[in-house]
């Protein structure tokens, strides 16, 4: 791709969408800039990048409390936007406020997505929209389609067996909310994914369904080229570093699976222990009713065991709600990462096949034909994206697991501290000398 403006590697730093050609963009370099990688013209012109009067794009509900943007505030936003330092955050997304919607056809939950940003890609400093799970699912699919060289974070599990799990229980909804929040935050932290147009629309559009329908029609060249790549090319051998990643992910997923099973088993045993404790405590009460001098001490022991039971219940609830879902997320994550690895293999295989074909033909020497070069670029971009994402993923994983396991240790410490307090407080009661009856 000789023409066009000089470009940095796609995976570094925030860039305006217009500048960034898509790594898997179509066959000619001329088309690389502008056209293909951007959404429909309608949406484009609706955006005013900078100095025009504010035109609300067909979407975007401004947050209730913020005043309509004026030129001066727009200027402020521009100045902040100059800062390309990766450490400065200019996009904040939160998922909260789950609400149940009862319609004739179905009942479902929506979550409020609040976005605060100084980025130019956002017309308003703040947005607040409501989305349901299937919207998140849509977003993820779109991201996978449009950014196939990147690792897309996982969503919490889609299907729950009705009747076994209550989809509308507080615990389930809260667990899901946290996972959806994590999902969006991971995208937000990603230097490429956070600039994805679908992500932007997801955060800002008032009527997402309208956009979704539109999106069907404009299956972009991007989508085409992705399909194009998944032809039946067979890779001879994975380069060492990617083979290592593949092996790592295999073992990692295996170990996580084991940990998940162990954690589930522990919770199960703890629940059974809890059942017995709930019978055990009250027997001391029954005994207490028979006795005179021993009545208070026995009643005290009964209450103590009751407190320990409550503490144990809190522990098992916490572990179920906070620990297990995160483990499962990472298992899903590594699964989707493995498929990205496979796609990469495909890209490499195509390149190698084409290269071989050329080598056999001998006509086009010394110049390597354009399409083989394109394949090579495609592969190198993919490799670069993937490596960068892997590094980021490893670092995040380390943080996440440190936090997760410390959290598990904390919950257990708190459980024992509650029990300790209960037992220590009854010692004086037990030692008390009672007045002669």
């Amino acid at each position, binding site marked *: 791709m000789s023409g066009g403006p000089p470009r940095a590697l796609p995976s570094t730093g925030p860039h305006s969408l217009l500048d960034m050609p898509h790594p898997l963009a179509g066959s000619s370099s001329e088309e690389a800039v502008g056209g293909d990688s951007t959404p429909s013209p309608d949406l484009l012109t609706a955006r005013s990048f900078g100095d025009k009067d504010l035109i609300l794009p067909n979407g975007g509900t401004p947050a209730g409390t913020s005043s309509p943007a004026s030129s001066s505030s727009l200027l402020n936003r521009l100045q902040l936007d100059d800062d390309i330092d990766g450490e400065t955050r200019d996009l904040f997304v939160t998922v909260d406020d789950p609400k149940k919607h009862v319609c004739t056809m179905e009942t479902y939950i929506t979550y409020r997505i609040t976005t605060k940003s100084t980025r130019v890609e956002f017309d308003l400093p703040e947005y607040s929209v409501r989305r349901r799970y299937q919207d998140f699912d849509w977003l993820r699919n779109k991201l996978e389609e449009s950014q196939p060289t990147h690792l897309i974070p996982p969503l919490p599990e889609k299907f729950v067996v009705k009747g076994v799990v209550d989809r509308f229980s507080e615990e389930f909804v809260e667990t899901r909310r946290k996972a959806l929040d994590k999902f969006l935050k991971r995208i937000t932290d990603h230097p490429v994914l956070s600039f994805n147009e679908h992500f932007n629309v997801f955060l800002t559009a008032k009527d997402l369904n309208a956009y979704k329908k539109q999106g069907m029609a404009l299956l972009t060249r991007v989508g085409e080229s992705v399909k194009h790549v998944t032809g039946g090319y067979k890779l001879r051998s994975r380069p060492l570093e990617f083979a290592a990643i593949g092996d790592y992910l295999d*073992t990692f997923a295996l170990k996580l699976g084991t940990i998940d099973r162990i954690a589930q088993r522990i919770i199960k*045993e703890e629940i059974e222990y809890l059942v*017995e404790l709930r019978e055990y405590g009250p027997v001391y009460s029954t*005994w207490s009713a028979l006795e005179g001098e021993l009545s208070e001490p026995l009643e005290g022991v009964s209450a*103590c065991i009751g407190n320990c039971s409550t503490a144990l219940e809190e522990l098992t609830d916490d572990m179920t709600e906070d620990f297990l879902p995160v483990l499962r997320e990472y298992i899903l994550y590594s699964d989707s990462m493995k498929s990205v690895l496979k796609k990469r293999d495909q890209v490499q295989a195509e390149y190698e096949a084409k290269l071989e074909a050329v080598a056999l033909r001998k006509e086009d020497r010394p110049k390597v034909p354009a399409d083989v070069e394109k394949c090579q670029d495609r592969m190198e971009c993919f490799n670069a994206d993937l490596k960068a994402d892997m590094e980021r993923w490893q670092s995040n994983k380390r943080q996440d697991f440190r936090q997760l396991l410390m959290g598990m240790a904390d919950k257990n410490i708190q459980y*024992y501290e509650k029990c300790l307090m209960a037992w220590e407080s009854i010692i004086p009661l037990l030692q008390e000398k009672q007045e002669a009856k």
Partner: protein
Amino acid sequence: MEQAPPDAPRQLQPAPLEPLGLPDAGLQAAAGEGDEGAREEGPGDGTMTENNFWLKKIEISVSEAEKRTGRNAMNMQETYTAYLIETRSVDHTDGQSVLTDSLWRRYSEFELLRNYLLVYYPHVVVPPLPEKRAEFVWHKLSADNMDPDFVERRRIGLENFLLRVASHPILCRDKIFYLFLTQEGNWKETVNETGFQLKADSRLKALNATFRVKNPDKRFTELKHYSDELQSVISHLLRVRARVADRLYGVYKVHGNYGRVFSEWSAIEKEMGDGLQSAGHHMDVYASSIDDILEDEEHYADQLKEYLFYAEALRAVCRKHELMQYDLEMAAQDLASKKQQCEELATGTVRTFSLKGMTTKLFGQETPEQREARIKVLEEQINEGEQQLKSKNLEGREFVKNAWADIERFKEQKNHDLKEALISYAVMQISMCKKGIQVWTNAKECFSKM
């Protein structure tokens, strides 16, 4: 409870308080010293006064258990455990102890001793023996009598039994008990010679009395009710506790699996590896800590079991009262009917049905001489009956007084012991919680270094 009012207070022999068996010069000398009232109750450590066979304070311990094989009554080989009982005499002045007696006994001999005590001291709440077979086990504990843990806990239980008997103001003066500790050979024969088995009340008789007694002392009725409830609630408690122990064991042991998987996982990690590995080690420590914790808890269960069995001893005293009371009621009833018969014969009126009356009607009136003879016999019987009633009354009252005194003593002991048991249980729980906090804090630190 009062039936016939006593005539003059007669000091009649109540149920034997003094030990039966071979007289002993030492016994008489020792018994002569001091006064009856100065009985010292040890806090379970077997210290006693000089009022008995024991001229000095003594310490008793069941120090060893040994597997033995021998031939039983049917000349078949059997394996059993023998326990070494050591008695030490303690010098007042310098507290030094000297081994005075040491002999081996097996569980069946303990049982024999206890059965003897039950017969000769029915007004005493006789301390119970540790269980014959392991009950209320949770899965890890063996129900096998030969299991070393079971044997060890039984050893402690037997020692506790001896200490309880030795610190009981009445039981400690028993001769057979003394011989149990001092005379290895021939002891069984000595016990059997007392003929105590013959003196035992039959079960049937006792059961009969329980159902038919009309006016037992209310306190005993309440006590019997209490001991039934106590037995029921402690059984329930022990059963659930065993299940709780079982579940707790499961929780701890599964955590051990974390140790292995963290270790395997650490192998593929670069920076996270060390933290994971060392955390895994702490999980192993956590998992193995439960064994000692539950072993300690077994001692608590044993303390509860002792009082579970004590409930049975309480009931035995109540039953004895019911039996005596029933006996008394029957004697009074018998006396009343004889008096009535006499009166009828004297006055010639027949108010009650009697076989004699029937035959008289059928075969003709009896002669005045015959009637006189019968009246005389009846009068003699009535006299005897009145004497017996008086003595039974006194016996009954003595029994109630003595039994109730021992029951009060028992209640104090029970409240004290069970409070101590609850405290030690709470202390065990506290220790377990502290260990848990320690392990998880260590693990957390390892995780933080990941």
